[in-house]
């Protein structure tokens, strides 16, 4: 069995497991972890497919795509985390003093 097949199979399993995990997760941070892992699985598929060359030198285009993909997914991870944090903070604040208005303007 050649190398890329091993990793392509691994990618398929990872995407499936993490994808299901992302759909079932309730809490945003957990959902985010699963989504990130599912993305890693997709990237793994790209990199594994790049390995099918006869020369042994891998196809660089999927590698570049994966680099772009990693950076994009880090951006959305950071954004999602910061939104979750703002949500937690707003919830805690409104829980602490329910007299203040829930309207939280961050000018």
């Amino acid at each position, binding site marked *: 069995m050649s190398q890329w097949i091993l990793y392509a199979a691994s990618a398929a399993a990872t995407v499936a497991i993490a994808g299901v995990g992302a759909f079932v997760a309730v809490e945003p941070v957990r959902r985010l972890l699963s989504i990130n892992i599912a993305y890693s699985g997709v990237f793994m598929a790209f990199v594994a497919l790049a390995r099918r060359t006869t020369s042994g030198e891998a196809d660089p285009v999927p590698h570049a795509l994966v680099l772009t993909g990693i950076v994009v997914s880090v951006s959305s991870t950071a954004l999602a985390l910061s939104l979750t944090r703002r949500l937690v903070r707003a919830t805690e604040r409104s829980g602490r003093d329910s007299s203040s208005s*829930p309207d939280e303007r961050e000018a």
Partner: protein
Amino acid sequence: MSAWPAWTVVIPLVGAFASWLVGRKSAFVAIASALATVGVTVVLALEVHARGTVLHRVGGWGAPLGIELRVDGPAALLLVVLGIVTALTSASAVAHFPMGRRRSTFITLWLIAWAGLNALLVSADLFNLYVALELITLTSVGLISLGPSRESIRAALQYLLVAILGSLGYLLGVALVYGECATLDVALAGERLARGTVSSAAFALVAAGLSLKSGLFPLHAWLPSAYANAPSPAAALLSGVLGKAAFVVLYRITGETFPLVLDAAPAQIVGVQAGAAIVWCSLLALRQRRLKMLIAYSSLAQIGYMFLAIPIGTPLARAGALYIAISHAAASAAIFTATGALERASGNDSIDALPGVAQRNPLTFFSLAIGGVNLMGLPPTGGFIAKWLLVRAALESGQWWWAVVVLVGGLIAAAYVFRVLREAFVPAVPLPATADAPQLAEVVSLLLAAVSLLLGVSPSWPLSLAMQSLGEGP
């Protein structure tokens, strides 16, 4: 090779950076770049109209190594109409946000989103489409999170998590396409992609991801709260323009990359989803108490009409879906802007607070009415042309049941539109004491409504662009 496609992306991008550097006084930069961008798109559309598909090879490489920008008739039409709607909507943002950090953040994000949208419309590369989609997603989330309440943040977070899950499906589909035919160019991949398991699976993944991102039934429950809790200008932008991005990608690649699998099972599944979206989301719209929620659900129903192009699949159906996209862009942006103005005046967007609007804000009432007629699909609006095209396409291709769905959707739309208009027309005695609605927003909503009217009154030019099929160009 023409330079205009690249300019449509470069100008808003430069504008975004300039407004970011200028900071507080970014409104002038915004106006200048909006005018320039609309100007460039109009020039590009004229060129496409005269000479057919326009091509630009970024970096001079050309497919399959590099990225190509190709603007055909439909893309040019979307560029112009969505551009005008985007520009007008942002003008109401100046009325909505007081001068300060939130306004300048809005302007920068809005210009970046516009650059992303134009990039998406002109791109002919599957992975570049993914990057543009993500750019639109992240800026949309930023725009929603500028809303006033905790609910805005919750909505933004939910929007982001669902959208990146959708992109995941799309990206996996792209991996399969690249694995099968070693190119990312939409048309080249279409030539190399044979009918088979891989192409069907790739289409299924791409369609699933993109329909999740568009909020197609049954995975739509996350979207209305995003529209309802975003600041009004952002909501107008989202439901009118940015919410159509995922559909536009699907529209493009069903035409160029996956023409072979259109009669296969995945396309029919998309059709069932679209039909269900039209009926079910219209019914839900009927039951809403908040005006913004009502429009949000009606937008979901309109998304359903657009997706009908995939199961019907004829050029006429594709033109109809395109026409829905542009006329709904103008109409829903008009309605959201008008609602924003009313919300400013009365303090909430409840339908029960509508009586007296026709007396007090005749302009706003008028734009609500035109937008509503558009949603129903009655003449003389663009919505009528669009639905007429869809019904004819359904009958011509022998799939009459889609025509029935379209007509039923129009009837339910009439019910909820008349409910709103009747409430607004009821004279309120005594007239409740309210603040003045911002005049700028009222004028903007009227102009947007005029765009949707214009699309119905003189459809020949837009239709000739919409029907211009690919490959006619030099």
